[in-house]
């Protein structure tokens, strides 16, 4: 608490309210370096404050609904009533569950993990074998410039770690369930996921977000893709309509790695997904796919950044959305091609289907190209269903819009 009080920078009441929960995320087993890291991140969060629509990266998305609310750090574990909520959907044999940011061994089944694959709670790993995670943890996430990532790192306590040893091929997927359970008052959690895929390994990982009640889930995922490794990542966000969700994924790719992300958003009142992929080796193939379906007054914001740092990398990005009623979506696709990244092949597509007159999408490609022998394409298409309505009804497809049949 004293650390918070001593800070000289004046912070807004909203920031102070979030920062006040800081000590609650401290545990006695945390290594010293983690304490330093968390304090640094808290200072960054206080310095940065909540972004406003004056920030270019937040122009179309106001986080006021989050900043104005008081969220207590969630402390509840799983209750018996949540069994259905926590149940995996993917048919995976290896399932790890986090409730309110805390790894929950009781709901997880890790015994089927094949040789060379370690799935464990982050707090357990930090307590028993910190050297396993120290080289990777918070090395990709940018607390310096991103307020929500800083906030997550400040509250870094627990989460899930997935380590795939070099040359290990996992033929069946791993499912990770992150549940946020709100009670009588709004709660927040800051789950952390660290995935390290060793050289020439292969893994398929499903990351799911579920919950009940008014919650704020501020998740950070870091993925280390080793040389020649193949990682297939799925994120499915199906939290309830009153939930707030900010999820940031940071990827570091090494030579000849192959990464694909499939980012699917259904729930939440305000959802922001960020993907930052740094292609830091030759011959990396990176696929970013996204799908969102929004209704009522949902806001779904997808921000992606692909940083082509080395030659001969390919990136393929397709984001598609369906927006009904008064929902709003944002897509911002940034592609950086650095001077060394010759022979880059980057393709970006964003398509949205608007089901009502009030639905809205703001889409923006952002290409920064500093190399001269590259191929970069981008395109966006927005369609309104109303004009297609008659033809679909004419084909006896009715009930597509909430206005009922033709």
């Amino acid at each position, binding site marked *: 608490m004293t650390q918070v009080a001593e800070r000289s920078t004046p912070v807004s009441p909203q920031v102070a309210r979030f920062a006040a929960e800081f000590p609650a995320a401290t545990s006695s087993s945390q290594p010293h370096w983690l304490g330093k890291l968390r304090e640094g991140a808290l200072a960054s969060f206080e310095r940065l404050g909540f972004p406003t629509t004056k920030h270019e990266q937040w122009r179309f998305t106001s986080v006021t609904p989050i900043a104005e609310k008081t969220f207590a750090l969630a402390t509840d574990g799983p209750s018996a009533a949540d069994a259905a909520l926590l149940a995996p959907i993917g048919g995976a044999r290896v399932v790890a569950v986090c409730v309110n940011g805390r790894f929950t061994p009781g709901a997880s089944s890790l015994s089927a993990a094949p040789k060379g694959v370690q799935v464990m709670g982050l707090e357990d790993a930090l307590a028993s074998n910190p050297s396993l995670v120290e080289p990777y943890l918070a090395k990709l996430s940018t607390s310096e410039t991103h307020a929500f990532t800083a906030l997550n790192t400040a509250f870094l306590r627990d989460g899930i770690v997935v380590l795939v040893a070099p*040359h290990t091929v996992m033929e069946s997927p791993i499912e990770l369930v992150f549940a946020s359970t709100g009670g009588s008052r709004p709660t927040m959690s800051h789950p952390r996921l660290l995935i390290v895929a060793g050289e*020439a390994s292969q893994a398929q990982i499903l990351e799911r977000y579920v919950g009940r009640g008014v919650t704020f889930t501020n998740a950070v995922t870091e993925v280390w893709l080793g040389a020649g490794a*193949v990682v297939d990542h799925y994120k499915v966000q199906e939290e309830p309509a009153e939930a707030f969700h900010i999820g940031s994924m940071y990827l570091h790719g090494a030579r000849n790695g*192959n990464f694909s992300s499939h980012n699917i958003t259904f729930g939440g009142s305000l959802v922001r997904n960020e993907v930052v992929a740094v292609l830091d080796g030759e*011959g990396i*193939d990176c696929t970013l796919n996204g799908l969102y379906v929004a209704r009522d007054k949902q806001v779904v914001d997808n921000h992606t950044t692909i940083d082509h740092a080395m030659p001969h990398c*390919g990136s393929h990005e397709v984001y598609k959305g369906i927006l009904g009623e008064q929902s709003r979506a944002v897509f911002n696709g940034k592609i950086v091609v650095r001077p060394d990244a010759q022979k880059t*092949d980057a393709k970006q597509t964003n398509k949205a289907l608007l089901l009502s007159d009030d639905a809205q999408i703001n889409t923006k490609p952002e290409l920064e190209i500093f190399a001269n022998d590259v*191929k970069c394409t981008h395109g966006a298409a927005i369609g309104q269903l109303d004009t297609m309505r008659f033809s679909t009804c004419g084909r006896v497809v009715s009930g597509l819009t909430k206005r009922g049949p033709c």
Partner: protein
Amino acid sequence: MLEIKDLQVRGGGKEILRGINLTVKTGEVHAIMGPNGSGKSTLARAISGHPDYEVTGGSITYDGKDLLAMAPEDRARDGVFMAFQYPVEIPGVNNAYFLKAAVNAVRKHRGQPELDAMEFMAYVREKAKILSLDPGLLNRPVNEGFSGGEKKRNEIFQMAVLEPALAVLDETDSGLDIDALKTVAHGVNQMRSPTRSTIVVTHYQRLLNYIEPDFVHVLQDGRIVRSGKKDLALKLEEKGYGWLEAEPQLM
């Protein structure tokens, strides 16, 4: 079939290969392994005649001919095929047309009659079937919009259609998941014949679980530092390339 003697090659202003000796007999499969930057890809490119690489010494004899005196397209007509590490997109050129032109150039060179469109389509469809490849690849522009895995599969498809006498695969396995790797290996295995030689350049041993090589060579600093049978690859996987420096050369 192929005899490489004291081959020295420069590329990008640097000396890369410093005296390679390698003999590949007809029907053999040779694997070339080695750490990044050891010269594996340079060797493959020197065999196929890549213009960015300058041969400063030594010789390559192919089928009794001086391969180095031949232009890349002449090497290709004579049955040298290279599956590229980074296949290039050729927008606007349909895969089928591209392959038909290539196949007929080879047939003409061999004094065989050229295939017409009907014969050609029947021929490539059959090839796609043998390799368990999606024939839809044929109707798309060469590599345009292909994923990394599709590009590599397309290289194998081209190899199968062209039926080379000497196939050089330059890290065709890189970045592939296990299923795509099996498809590629299946393609190479289908192509194995007593009249065809194959050089497989790879960083990882895993591909060699599916394509069993007759010989394995390890390249380091532009020289072959060790040659052996399949077990050499397994030992490399287990001990890493550093092990070669620790133990004296046994050649």
